[in-house]
């Protein structure tokens, strides 16, 4: 496979043909916030947090879906990009009902981490306070749509890794919601295997285990890398490696 050289924020790097900009950045520990992307799942380029500026291209491109090309000159942290990332997180904060103080995921939440990472101090958009439902019909897990950021990681992990396809997106625009089955109660769906993968990949407190209380829900995302490398390479990595 051909090797490509590219410039990221002034430094030169080499990459394999077919790799994404994000892969190269992660390999070299160049920080960039991501939300919808999760190693091991298909990429959807939906959250737009990872957008970067490539010289000569008028549009901003998501690092997670854009493949490297020879001679690319990429800027990942311009003032404009940083501002847009803050705005995206602010939009998310205003969209749901994210009351951290009473959330099971408090201190273990990717949305919180992202807010710190992008330097969000104030949300200038009015909070929408949507009326969202909570589904506690499953025997082990709970889905609280108030905390959902619609990253679709649960949808993808269930479909692509577990093969059960319990989850889907219903509705459109601001009324989108993640639903189980054909919008049935989670506990009633016949396809759910109770494997818990969706709970573990969920970045927020939207999906959690029954019985946990405020700030107790820690997610173990390492399982995904463990499963994927086991399946693809027949290698068994440590469970905490992917964290």
């Amino acid at each position, binding site marked *: 496979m051909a090797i490509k050289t590219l410039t990221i924020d002034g430094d030169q790097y080499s990459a394999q043909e077919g790799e994404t900009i994000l892969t190269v950045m992660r390999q070299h520990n160049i920080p960039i916030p991501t939300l919808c992307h999760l190693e091991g799942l298909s990429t959807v380029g939906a959250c737009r947090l990872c957008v970067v500026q490539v010289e000569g291209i008028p549009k901003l491109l998501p690092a997670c879906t854009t493949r490297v090309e020879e001679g690319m000159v990429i800027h990942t942290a311009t003032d404009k990009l940083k501002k847009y990332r803050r705005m995206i997180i602010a939009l998310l904060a205003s969209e749901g009902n994210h009351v951290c103080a009473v959330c099971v995921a408090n201190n273990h939440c990717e949305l919180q981490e992202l807010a710190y990472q992008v330097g969000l101090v104030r949300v200038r958009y009015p909070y929408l306070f949507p009326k969202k439902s909570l589904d506690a019909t499953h025997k082990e897990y709970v889905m609280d749509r108030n905390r959902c950021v619609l990253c679709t990681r649960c949808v993808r992990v269930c479909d692509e890794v577990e093969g059960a396809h319990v989850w889907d*997106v219903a509705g459109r625009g601001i009324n989108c919601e993640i639903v189980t089955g054909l919008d049935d109660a989670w506990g009633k769906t016949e396809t759910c295997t109770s494997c818990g993968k969706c709970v573990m990949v969920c970045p927020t407190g939207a999906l959690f285990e029954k019985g946990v209380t405020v700030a107790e829900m820690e997610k173990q995302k390492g399982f995904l890398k463990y499963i994927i490398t086991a399946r693809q390479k027949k290698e068994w990595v440590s469970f905490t490696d992917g964290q």
Partner: protein
Amino acid sequence: MTIEDLQELSEQEQQRQSEKKHRILYCSAAGCVSCGSDNVSAMLKTKVKEHTLEKECEVIGTGCMGLCGEGPLVKVQSDNILYQNVDEVTASQIVESHILNGKRVEKNICDTSAPFFASQTKIVLENCGRINSESIDEYVAALGYEALGKALTEMQPHDVIEEIRKSGLRGRGGAGYSTGLKWGIVRKAHGEQKYIVCNADEGDPGAFMDRSVLEGDPHRVLEGMAIAGYAVGASQGYVYCRAEYPLAIERLKLAIKQAEKIGLLGNRILESQFNFRIDIRIGAGAFVCGEETALIASIEGRRGNPRTRPPYPSEKGLWGMPTVINNVETFANVAPIIRNGSDWFSKIGTEKSKGTKVFALAGNIRNTGLIEVPMGIPLRKIIFDIGGGTPEGQEFKAAQTGGPSGGCIPNEHLDLPVDYESLLAVGSFMGSGGLIVMDSTSRMVDVAKFFMQFCMDESCGKCIPCRVGTRHIYGLLDKISKKKATQDDLTLLEELCVMVKETSLCGLGQGAPNPVISTLRFFRHEYEQLLQPVETYLGGEVEVADFEK
């Protein structure tokens, strides 16, 4: 069927038509149907029967005749007389007075030398309103399928692509990408199977160009698709049409059946080695399903969400295979280009925008309807000559093109040539061809709010900037229009517009802020007039926005 058979069919039909003394055409497109052309046609037929004129006189339903605002329209083709606002009484007079006694029904005669008709150039709509939209014979008699025959017998696939490329034809569905280049990429791309997709989703509010073509001249679109199939090496085509167009779907189905029956679609077309089938896929009317990647997902049976490009559909489209996806009007231009040559086509229009464009004229304008004009025509001519200006002579304020991704063009740009680049330069967009005229009574903040509500409701919700951003932009516009906003809100609005435009995943989100940006550019004072000084805001209610729709 061979080429010779096709020729014979054409001559037979021409002969049949010439034997009729009179051909009475009535517009059977959705606009005229909605104002009662069904009753009119029934009356015409009854009267013809009553006076036993069936032998010498036929009554035929056609596609859109153009002047929708004055419908129902009826045309006595033999004498080239167009009647407007025809009701049942007039219909019986047309038969009993005009046809029987040669006395025209003066009060309903429409002046076809008026600029509305005289300033148009018809390529796409050449058959609309002239032939029976449900008869393949009439299409063939009007040189239909001649281009397909020519391509299959006289041209190699790459000649067809070259011809289309040289003609300068650009996509009529929005962005204006060169059709020849697109086909060339698909031809070169590797795939066991290739597909042709016709985008007939037409979701822009106020647009009805594609519907009119499909209703009035469906075979022209099928012929264009078949030629594309031959050019790129595809054997399967799909027309993706929205469910809100039942008449268009019905006519398409009929047209496909007719063409299959006489070997113009299906296996071994015109006894060549070329096979091409066309199927219809019906969308549920989501605006975003007009976006090409969402449309493909929808045909595949998945949720109509766009995905990031590249890969473009020309490399990885339907079921991962190289796919040509073009708009209805784009395909409708193909047969005439192949028939008459690229030089003929490229003489029409401007240097970079060739050919004609169909527009749906709507809003505060005297002649609402469907028009086709050469590219580069000044906007003034469209609005004042063809459109007849505002109905009661109110002052013209702005024209909106490009639908929810487009912008407003104010008075001072009335002499702008209407082509892809010029429209972009003033912050608007060709779009698929909706043209809404506004007079001095329109409030521009409300116009922006209308389009933003549309985008907010039609957003697929996949990416955050569009899903949440359009919602807040709508909220801010609502707040401004209700005089509850301050300068800070306006700043917030402008920042958000730029960010949503730059970071959204697909064209819907990227284009959604345009109506706001454009009205701010030309009518900023209308926003500012509605703002409140900060003190009122601090002292008064701290209601941030009224988010109830």
